[in-house]
């Protein structure tokens, strides 16, 4: 620590003083390694034979790449009573994720629009209720939602899972679009009004084309969240529409006899492929979504 009456040191970045640059890099790289170890271990384990898993270590590279447990995880591992592998869940996750994301974004964008440019009575009350609702733990709403969906006959169906996802995504997506529309100059709106653009015309011809970045951000976040969801799929999907996460957990926890770690890790990797692909190809959008307070904040 420098004292007040010490001779003035060479001017340097005071905040950098205790940590040399080298140390900063060492720490940052160490943190990156810690972050990457689980992914690395997942990958190498998935390629090893059980023999190699027993004799080698967690971190060692596979000697002979074997693929049969990938095939088993995909095609024949048992998820409870059925032994058809993860492929069923993969298809289900697609069938759930794509319509849910499209509908959630459409609903959120339109709601955000109606809440932004128009002085609608009680709009702020509605928005506040939505924001608070976005914080509710799913556990609170699950029982009423099970009753509602079974009353209208969509419990344990694809439609039911999608409907629940859309309802749960609505607050966040609306928040994103409302904030985005708030940054659009009001003069644009006024000019469009003067030129006679109606309610939907302004939305579809002017606002929507300007919102492509926001649609991308919301889409990427929601694809990741909905693909990764466990509890909605578990409760509302039933046996026929169990998403990949539910099937993965069943595969790992319903094995009898010797656990096959390589099959488990292959299955875990297969379940992460889509979100990882989305993340690594669009990382910056994802970061933007997170940083702009997208995560219900």
């Amino acid at each position, binding site marked *: 620590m420098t004292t007040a009456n010490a001779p003035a040191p060479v001017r340097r970045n005071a905040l950098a003083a205790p940590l040399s640059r080298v140390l900063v890099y060492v720490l940052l790289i160490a943190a990156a390694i810690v*972050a990457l170890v689980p992914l690395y271990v997942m990958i190498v384990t998935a390629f090893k034979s059980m023999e190699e898993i027993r004799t080698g270590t967690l971190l060692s590279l596979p000697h002979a790449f074997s693929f049969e447990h990938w095939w088993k995880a995909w095609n024949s591992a048992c998820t409870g009573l059925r032994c058809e592998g993860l492929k069923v869940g993969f298809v289900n996750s697609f069938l759930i994720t794509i319509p849910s994301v499209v509908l959630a974004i459409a609903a959120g964008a339109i709601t955000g629009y*109606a809440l932004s440019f128009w002085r609608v009575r009680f709009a702020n009350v509605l928005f506040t209720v939505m924001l608070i609702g976005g914080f509710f733990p799913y556990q609170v709403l699950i*029982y*009423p939602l099970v009753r509602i969906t079974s009353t209208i006959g969509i419990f344990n169906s694809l439609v039911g899972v999608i409907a629940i996802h859309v309802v749960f995504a609505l607050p966040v997506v609306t928040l994103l679009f409302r904030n985005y529309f708030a940054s659009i100059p009001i003069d644009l709106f006024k000019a469009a009004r003067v030129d006679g653009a109606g309610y939907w015309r302004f939305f579809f011809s002017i606002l929507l084309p300007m919102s492509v970045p926001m649609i991308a951000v919301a889409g990427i976040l929601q694809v990741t969240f909905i693909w*990764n969801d466990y509890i909605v799929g578990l409760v509302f999907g039933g046996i026929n529409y169990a998403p990949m996460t539910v099937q993965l957990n069943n595969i790992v926890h319903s094995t009898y006899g010797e656990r096959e770690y390589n099959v488990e890790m292959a299955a875990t990797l297969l379940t*992460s492929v889509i979100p990882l692909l989305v993340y690594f190809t669009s990382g910056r959008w994802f970061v933007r979504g997170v940083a702009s307070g997208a995560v219900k904040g």
Partner: protein
Amino acid sequence: MFVRSPSSSRLQAALTLVPVAFVVLSVYVGGVLWAVGISFTRSSMLPNYRFAGFTQYINLFSNARWQVSLGNMALFAVIFIPVTLLIGYSMAAMINRGVRGENALRTIYLYPFAMSFIVTGLVWRWLLDPNFGIADVARKLSFENASFDWIVNADMAIFTIIIAAIWHSSGLVMVVLLAGLRGVDEDLWKAIRIEGIPAWKAHLYIIMPSIGASIATAMVLMSLTVVRMFDVVVAMTGGGPGIATDVPAKFIIDHMFERQQVGLASAAATTLLLLVLVIAVPLLYLKNRRKGAAQ
């Protein structure tokens, strides 16, 4: 923000909001009132609307499994939040100084957040496996007596879940705080430099308070992770050994569907909801007030 508009378009906006309002009111308001209502009845497998006062709450708080669940959640919060905040802040502060490969580092730090909690739980279960996991690596590196069996040890298992959660969330906290640090006025850094204030002091007393909003956001995100914690426990320990790693969210689901004690589960859910509101409402209030002040 708002302009006076011909009433026909405004009417259309209002009409657009009708279905949204219907869904929001029936699910978020109606659903919650229903759930809270059930918590005051004797409902077991099927709802039963005879009023039972606070019976379910009395049963709940004398239930040993609920007490363990709450204790685990508290322990989780007390360790997970400060540690993740410290890691996230340190990484953000180091990156903020300007380093090469910033984008690559950020991408690496945040990727765990893109993985599901089920995947997170299963990977860490494998990493911490007492026979073949990290303990085995240590043994084969000639530490022959190394053992690390926390995940199957009733007293320590909860810490393995905390470790997995810290891995999952540190990058998120880093991103949120880095966005805050990027907004700190350049003059403030200059002043700190000129005054020669030691780095740790400057961070603790000057920089951290000036990014209070980002820290609050990160805290709320982490608190919600704590309250909602479910998937990672299911995947990693299934609540075991025994009930050692049980958490409130899991208690609720188990009692609702497997044990069919809907009234008790609803009382637990209502308790959880109150906790969430205590966390979320002050933040929403603060945010709105700040926006109001800025206008």
